[in-house]
């Protein structure tokens, strides 16, 4: 099983929605979504993503186990760690003004799942995720940024490109093809 972690902020919702709509049912990998969102709005996000998704979307509870074929969305106002024992949620201080912070989820996956991680950074308006995606690369994983030309807001992928060498810069269609063909 691979661990696919997708981070995004402003302008990433449609891309994430398109990815989830095109993954096959019974997808053999686990997907983690860390998207900047309103901290006091608990409901609606899972439902909106589920509308078109081919795989189940849920917000994990603390210490839930990871199951392949599910897209796990970081809950509002919690950081999402992925550990060897499953999920850990925290209310630690905001990082890059964000809780959930993309860096937190990226770093934790890099530390625990090493070269089984595929990190993807999408459209967004700050640098959250740039340091984290570098840590995935450093740990032996693959990293992708959404092509800045396609992004509604390109600050986030550009911050990653500035910080490290990226394996792939892709548009949405190519990201979908990459994920569909990803072997376990």
């Amino acid at each position, binding site marked *: 099983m691979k661990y696919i972690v997708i981070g995004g902020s402003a302008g990433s919702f449609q891309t994430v929605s398109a990815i989830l709509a095109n993954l096959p049912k019974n997808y053999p990998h686990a997907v983690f979504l860390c998207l900047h969102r309103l901290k006091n709005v608990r409901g609606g996000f899972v439902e909106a993503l589920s509308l078109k998704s081919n795989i189940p979307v849920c917000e994990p509870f*603390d210490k839930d186990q990871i199951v392949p074929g599910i897209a796990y969305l970081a809950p509002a106002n919690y950081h999402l760690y992925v550990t060897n024992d499953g999920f*850990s949620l925290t*209310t*630690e*201080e905001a990082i890059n003004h964000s809780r959930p912070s993309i860096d937190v989820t990226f770093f*934790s996956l890099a530390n*625990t799942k090493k070269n089984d991680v595929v990190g993807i950074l999408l459209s967004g308006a700050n640098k959250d995720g740039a340091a984290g995606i570098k840590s995935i690369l450093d740990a032996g994983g693959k990293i992708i940024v959404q092509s800045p030309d396609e992004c509604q807001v390109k600050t986030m992928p550009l911050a990653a490109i500035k910080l490290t060498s990226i394996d792939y810069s892709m548009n949405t269609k190519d990201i979908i093809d990459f994920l569909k063909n990803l072997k376990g």
Partner: protein
Amino acid sequence: MDEFQPISNEIFRKIISTVRTLRNVDFTMFAPDILMHRINRSMNLHGIQFYEKLINKLMVDNCFVDLFLSEIFVPTTEMFRDDTMWKFLEEHIISKLKHESICKIWVPQICGDDELYSLLILLHRNGMLDKSTVYATSPIQKILDDAKIALIDPKKFEASDSNFKKINDKNSLTIYLSHSDKYEYILPELLNKVIFLRHNILNSVSPDNAFNLVLFRDRMLYLNSNIQKMVLENFASNIVKGGYLITGIREKIPNDFQNVFVPVSKNENIFVKV
């Protein structure tokens, strides 16, 4: 230093052992990945680059030990976080507790502590303060001392006030604050009924018994699974039948306890002890 870098087992054990020796605080209660991040974060805050230097500083600097310990515990984020929970608490739980002759409440593992202050404001609003005894406990003296001072963090105030207005659209939180030297504090009279007590949640001995309410939101997140069960056993023994336990909205009560703590509100993770 990368705040998220793993700490080797040997160093990790050394830090845990040092803290246990110095302050009798058992860090093994924490989920390891979170604890590593908290240690690294504290080192970054103090410009400490190497773990051996951290251990040496802990051994020789008594004040730093207290500061370090207080930084390991995760502070609460804001007052009235999850406003719907507080609304439910006020409308459905406090309204029932009003009929009790006395009301004993326990807020364990405080840190921050916006949860404690939010509770005190609700009790005050509902005329419950005089009949309530509130235990606020932590194993760390500095955390207790800071909570007694009740200084409001201006960075959190906007979010806290916004949450409060969703519960009570008439008044701002400012009516519960006092002003002194450019700083704002929780009104001292709200704190009069609080017993601040140094207490380790791992102790089988509870600060009291027959609690009507235990407020333990987003604190189980930081405990490993075995410790969670010990803590819930403690609550099960010390909450009165018909009393309430409130946990964080993303925390789960393990199966072993689902016959003891029955949800009153699944969305808000409010349970009644049966």
